[in-house]
């Protein structure tokens, strides 16, 4: 994947849409318009077929069996690991730990790598982080007296890079940031930050939950030390996610969970660990979903991540334009589509996001309303909640138009003026 210099072939959302059976569903008598992709994406037929195929031909427990099914299941499971490594251009498949989700990946780093930290050490986060990249560090701070620092955001929803530079110091042992905000859409300059982090001797943890599904992500050229993401946000099954790491770091880390698969030798009161990445995978893993996930990577690779990004960039540009034109919405995050991923958070000052989402739902339109697991950011933006529309490879301008019509209809429903200014 990485390094292919072929020209970007535009993706065809209609053709892609046909691959997702759920998109033929009706909601309240309307065709489903699914705009909640930042929460989770839908799954293509090939992922469902791969799941069914695993269970109807090769299901067995992995790593320990001589029999044919066990061998096949093991090969399928390990194939997921190498496919993921290739997808993000990791240096080595041994650096890919298969976990439940991005949250578990970040917790693993915070707990295991975090165990090397103590009083006086600092972890640098930001005001735009998801709870999954805040709470594990808050737990670490409680346990080990580590200090948390937070990069503030600018008025237009970007990381304040000057403040970031000022916060970095030799005390900084970890910098952990989202590559793309799930509320603001902001794409953060991770490569630049990673270089700065390394200069002060910190490790760079990248929350790739939103970036890996929606743009080309190259672990090595980012200079990441750890990268966390979830399969379910990238057209893969629920229940499986990844921690991609530099193998040397994993080698030095202690496991956080004990049991089958992760051991080398066990005595009643002594245990030694298996090699990486196995020492971090205790118990029977989520084999079926690992076997199925490469089908999602096939789709993304066939589409091409540059094309995915170009499509969503175009779509968010169109959405920003149409939503701004309504005139009554507060939009959060940078207004420049180049600086943001394919999602937009907005607030109608007169209709609570919950009510807005409810009205949209009756028209078959699925958006998310709430704090998006970013309560500190909500406080910073001085809102209780926002509504958020987030795009995937199967969305197109018609979906944006349906959203805009829905927002106008909501105003009408609640008896508010709702003339489009556009």
């Amino acid at each position, binding site marked *: 994947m990485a390094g292919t210099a072929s020209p970007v072939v535009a993706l065809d959302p209609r053709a892609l849409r046909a691959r997702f059976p759920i998109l033929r569903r009706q909601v*309240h*008598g309307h065709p489903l318009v699914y705009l909640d992709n930042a929460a989770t994406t839908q799954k293509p037929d090939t992922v469902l077929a791969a799941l069914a195929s695993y269970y109807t031909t090769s299901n067995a427990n992995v790593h320990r069996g001589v029999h044919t099914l066990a061998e096949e299941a093991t090969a399928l499971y390990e194939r997921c690991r190498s496919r993921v490594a290739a997808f993000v251009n990791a240096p080595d498949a041994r650096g890919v730990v298969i976990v439940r989700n991005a949250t578990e990946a970040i917790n693993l780093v915070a707990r295991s790598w975090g165990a090397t930290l103590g009083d006086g050490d600092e972890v640098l986060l930001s005001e735009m982080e998801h709870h999954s990249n805040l709470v594990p560090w808050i737990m670490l701070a409680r346990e080990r007296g580590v200090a948390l620092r937070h990069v503030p955001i600018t008025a237009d929803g970007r990381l304040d890079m000057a403040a970031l530079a000022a916060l970095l110091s030799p005390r900084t042992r970890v910098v952990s940031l989202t590559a793309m905000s799930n509320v603001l859409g902001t794409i953060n300059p991770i490569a630049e930050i990673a270089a700065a982090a390394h200069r002060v001797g910190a490790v760079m943890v990248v929350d790739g939950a939103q970036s890996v599904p929606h743009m080309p992500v190259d672990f090595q050229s980012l200079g990441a030390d750890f990268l966390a993401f979830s399969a379910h946000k990238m057209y893969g099954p629920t229940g499986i996610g990844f921690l991609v790491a530099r193998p040397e770091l994993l080698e030095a880390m202690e496991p956080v969970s004990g049991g089958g698969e992760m051991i080398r030798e066990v005595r009643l009161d002594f245990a030694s660990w298996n090699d990486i990445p196995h020492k971090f995978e205790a118990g029977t893993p989520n084999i079926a979903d690992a076997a199925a996930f490469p089908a999602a990577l096939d789709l993304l690779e066939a589409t091409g991540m540059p094309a995915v990004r170009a499509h969503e960039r175009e779509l968010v540009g169109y959405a920003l334009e149409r939503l701004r034109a309504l005139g009554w919405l507060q939009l959060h995050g940078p207004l420049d589509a180049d600086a943001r991923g394919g999602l937009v958070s907005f607030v109608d000052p007169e*209709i*609570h*996001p*919950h*009510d807005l989402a*409810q*009205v949209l739902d*009756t028209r078959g339109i699925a958006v998310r*309303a*709430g*704090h998006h697991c970013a*309560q500190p950011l*909500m406080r910073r933006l001085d809102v*209780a*909640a926002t509504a958020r529309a987030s795009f995937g490879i199967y969305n197109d301008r018609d979906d944006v138009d349906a959203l805009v019509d829905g927002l106008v209809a909501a105003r009408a*429903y*609640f*008896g508010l003026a709702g003339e489009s200014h556009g």
Partner: protein
Amino acid sequence: MVDRPDVALDDLYREVVMDHHRRPRGRAPLARVDATAHGFNPVCGDEVVISLALDGDRVTGAQVQGRGCAICTASGSMMAEMIPGHTAAEAEATAAAFRAVMHGAPAPGGTDLGDLEALEGVQKFAVRVKCAMLPWVTLTDALKAWRDGGNEATSTTEAQEAER
């Protein structure tokens, strides 16, 4: 797929509900506050603060502040209108009856839910039940804290709505 009868928006946002939402009652500050509680819905970030004046065990005044959706606002507004003049026990009985209705049970015999009946349609919208309950959960907490001798409490819809 979950079986779910098609629901009309108007079931949720009845006339009476919309009226309370647009002109919420009980916003004015009280001269004296005997009990107060802060309620929080972690699902959506909605917050309400309930302040009560009591004379003996009779509620003489109620203020409802905060930010919430139409359902939460209307529910709080109805509460502010209903409970003054009632005893603490009566207010708690109303809260219990309303919770029963929200979870699909019939209102216990003899309870007059007044305007709250207009919120009956909310029960079909599982996520929104918490919105309707937030002011009442908070009220219950304020009264509990007041009985226990304290006069401040913090509560969430999760804590009290978990048993449903």
